[in-house]
């Protein structure tokens, strides 16, 4: 716990030129509340407190996250429990329109599922897939980037060519490819594999930018004297990469990851919309949009618009948070 907190505490949040000018307090014992308090008082924390965009975006993202995490308890209905569905409730408009009922706040879809609840469950899938694929991308991308930047030579050349190759495939195409292959190999296990395939395809195209960024930063850090000092002491290269270089290159990765979550969610939605993403039994926002699309022109707009709006809201708030983070971490822009 001590080591990890120290890593977090020292990971760039409190070290900027102007704060050096005014001095800062040494970290005390690693305690979560103390850490949060100290963070709020730091330059980044202050930047957060004074940026209305960041606060609103964070609030919205937190609400969505909360709904998604606690959907089974927060949602008014369980839209995927077939026993509770009644076809008589199908295609009801939102509560404030004519014909709507307060029981189904945002209306129902063609099978009588409550849209609001479906949104929460769908957001759950979308966020889970988005976060999982970003985490995997970061792990793979950072590892490759560190290796390429630190070892150089043919390892670097090979990995960079791999990046170039990966970049020339659009994410959708890769996903379709893998989905097709998956379906051909495991025709029966489609549903359970669907998520694996989905996350894999988004990961495969997402890791490249982390690798590139980290490679660049690693090459810069590798030539710095503290790395040379570690080499003179005799520390093994792998250890230097992990303990010295990694904490110093994670800054830009955090920013990228935050923005990438939004991209991943949208990519997942697109794939689900195309039918190669989340299975219909546990639909994500994209699936809901697809399902509702057919009813758009028959006047039942709420079935597709609300999932769409939710998607936009999540993506927008995460994007705004990422933008704020990038500006806050850039000392020159103050």
């Amino acid at each position, binding site marked *: 716990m001590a080591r990890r907190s120290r890593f977090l505490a020292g990971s760039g949040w409190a070290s900027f030129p*102007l704060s050096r*000018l*005014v*001095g800062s307090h040494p970290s005390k014992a690693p305690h979560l509340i103390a850490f949060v308090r100290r963070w709020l008082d730091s330059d980044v924390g*202050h930047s957060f407190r004074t940026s209305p965009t960041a606060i609103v975006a964070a609030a919205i993202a937190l609400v969505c996250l909360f709904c998604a995490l606690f959907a089974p308890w927060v949602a008014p209905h369980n839209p995927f429990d077939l026993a509770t569905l009644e076809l008589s409730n199908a295609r009801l408009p939102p509560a404030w329109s004519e014909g709507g009922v307060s029981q189904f706040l945002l209306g129902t879809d063609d099978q009588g599922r409550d849209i609001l609840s479906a949104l929460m469950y769908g957001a759950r899938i979308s966020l889970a897939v988005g976060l999982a694929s970003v985490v995997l991308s970061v792990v793979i991308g950072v590892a490759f980037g560190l290796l390429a930047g630190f070892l150089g030579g043919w390892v670097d050349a090979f990995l960079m060519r791999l990046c170039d190759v990966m970049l020339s495939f659009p994410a959708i195409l890769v996903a379709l490819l893998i989905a097709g292959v998956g379906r051909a190999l495991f025709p029966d296990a489609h549903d359970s594999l669907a998520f694996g395939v989905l996350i894999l395809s988004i990961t495969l195209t997402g890791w490249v930018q982390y690798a590139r960024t980290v490679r660049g930063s690693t090459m810069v850090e590798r030539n710095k004297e503290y790395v040379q000092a570690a080499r003179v002491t005799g520390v093994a290269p792998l250890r230097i990469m992990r303990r010295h270089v990694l904490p110093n290159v994670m800054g830009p990765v955090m920013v990228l990851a935050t923005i990438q979550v939004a991209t991943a969610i949208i990519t997942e939605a697109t794939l689900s919309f195309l039918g190669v993403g989340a299975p219909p039994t546990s639909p994500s926002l994209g699936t809901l949009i697809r399902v509702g699309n057919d009813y758009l022109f028959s006047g039942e707009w709420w079935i597709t618009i609300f999932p769409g709006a939710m998607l936009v809201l999540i993506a927008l708030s995460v994007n705004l948070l990422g933008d704020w983070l990038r500006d806050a971490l850039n000392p020159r822009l103050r």
Partner: protein
Amino acid sequence: MSLLQVKNLVVEFRHRRGTLRALDDISFDIAPGEILGVVGESGAGKSLTGASIIGLLEPPGRVASGEILLEGRRIDNLPFDEMRKVRGRQIGAIFQDPLTSLNPLYSVGRQLIETITTHLPVNQAEARQRAIQLLRDTGIPAAEQRIDHFSHQFSGGMRQRVVIALALAAEPQLIVADEPTTALDVSIQAQIITLLKNICKERGAAVMLITHDMGVIAETCDRVAVMYAGRIAEIGPVHEVINHPAHPYTAGLMACIPDMSVDRERLHQIDGAMPRLNAIPAGCAYNPRCDRVLDRCHDERPDLMPAGVTRAACWLHAPAVARGEEVSQ
């Protein structure tokens, strides 16, 4: 009449934790054709002084009060366009890194000609001739060919000569040189400071030479101002200040510098460090580190007062002390 007059200049940085005073009531003059050295350690504020005069103070830094007068006319409060005209025509600037001072995409000649034609009423052909002559004067061989070369085709010392030529192109009256030789090798440094001194004397341009290197100051300047914690500690003719320093900080500084002519077992060291901007002591900024501190030094900040030939901001030179009436600690 002085060419440049700085009167009670105060430069502040507004930060969310408070306002920092980077320059605290600086006053000095530069006479026409004179070379004034501004020396001090990092954080003393010498580069900021230069930047304020050229008008290139980066926000959140701003001139909070005081005046900067060039030939009797205020330049610290000019609108951007007016200052731009002054900046090339009357004040030239030389910075530390010659690589970034020149635009790598344009030939050297183009930059020179552009500067000349912007500020002086000459046509292109005449400007080109002047540019070639400038390059010759700064010691660049084969100037007629090299005028069309790009900055990467020059070596470090040559580039700095081009920068000097560029600074002098519009025939300014004042050159502000901020650490012009710090990034150069010792042998090149010697050539550049000789060049700067001679060419400015020839053209009657005054120079404000900002550096941390006392040796460069000793060889080039007529007068020198020693800065400490955003204030001027001592100002006077260069050999007086170096050989008979009147301020304890200047004396300590001179003693710290390893000298080629004397062998010492231990270098004299001034204990402590220059105070941070948010922790400048009351009274004289140097009082915690001073070995000749008086009671007065803790409470009252001394202004520059006469101390022999120089002027020093030190209570040791207040008339009562000099007359031996006050008892030192």
